[in-house]
């Protein structure tokens, strides 16, 4: 339908092709009006991203971040005990629900840090994360999730 070289044009613009490959594509582009036109559109649309406003970090963000991290990382004893019970429940529940939950992330450290509930072991080992964690409030949603079969979460993941 369109020139098959089109998929390489972004990497060409980004200078991320091997030198030989880039040279080959450059010669193709010289002779292909369609690629020239599309390359121009890619470039202009990427340049247009400059119109996104500059990011200004809100004043005092760092202070709030630090205060929040230190405050929310303190876990009172009773909360820790409650967390232990909750974690055990969650663990049991998840163990009986294969296939429920987001796609696993390879790095367990990050899986934990990002709150990915597929890491049951991490949940049990890191009770303090349950203090304010999605996982408990997600239980209702996860239960409803079963009824939403056929919903494509991240369709593009399969495609790569």
């Amino acid at each position, binding site marked *: 339908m369109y020139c098959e070289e*089109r*998929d*390489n*044009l*972004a*990497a060409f613009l*980004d200078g*991320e092709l091997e030198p030989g490959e880039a040279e080959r594509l450059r010669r193709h582009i010289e002779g292909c009006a369609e690629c020239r036109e*599309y390359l121009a*559109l*890619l470039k*202009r*649309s*990427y340049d*247009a*991203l400059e*119109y*996104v*406003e500059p*990011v200004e*970090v*809100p004043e005092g*963000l*760092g202070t*709030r*971040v*630090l205060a*929040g*991290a*230190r405050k*929310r*990382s303190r876990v009172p004893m009773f909360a820790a005990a409650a967390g232990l019970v909750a974690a055990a429940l969650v663990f049991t529940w998840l163990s009986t629900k294969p296939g429920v939950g*987001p796609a696993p*992330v*390879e*790095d367990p*450290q*990050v899986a*934990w*840090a*990002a*709150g*990915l509930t597929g890491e049951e072991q991490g949940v049990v080992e*890191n009770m*303090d*994360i349950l203090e304010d964690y*999605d996982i408990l409030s997600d239980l209702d*949603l996860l239960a*409803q*999730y079963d009824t*939403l079969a056929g*919903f494509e*979460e*991240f*369709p*593009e*993941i399969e*495609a*790569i």
Partner: protein
Amino acid sequence: MNGGSPSSAADPDTQLMREFTAGNEEAFDRIVKNFEHRVYGTIYRYVGSRAAAEDCAQEVFLRLYRMKKTYKPTARLSTLIYRITTNLCLNFIRDERRRRMVSLDDRKNDGSIAIGALIRDERAEDVSAALEARERAEIVRRALGRILPRQRVALVLHRFEGLSYAGIADVMETNVAAVKSLLSRARASLAEALRADIEAGNL
């Protein structure tokens, strides 16, 4: 992927995280100072809302703080922080969608609600006049919001954070070929979303 890259040993930020895990609380202050702009900026570009960006940024650093006892320097600190940030961004969209699924049963959502909800549709009124900067920003943000989640993550890291394909592959725990494909598709969506405005001379 090179999770345990040798460069992490000499990286000053990674060293700060080591000091923090060894008990130096002040090292964490410096980590926040060094990364708040990158974290907030990445989330803001991805999600398109300042309030959500602040909340997510808080969460990123909270999760990093809680690694105090479990942290292992398997990657540069910047890679780890971008990884937590982008995973939270992806979760944010997933949760938004799920919330919407449950409440509205909208099965056709394309992941752009976070941005779509924040942008008024005021295009048609003002075709002939030159578009103001704010309006151009809205057009562009709306186009960004239409890009599928993982493609958008790759695009934000590349365009706004200046990461190379290899750097993005590290953050997203995939390979360079997959990043090339994500970015190619991200930029194709962007081009199609902006084509009419570019051809009309609005951008």
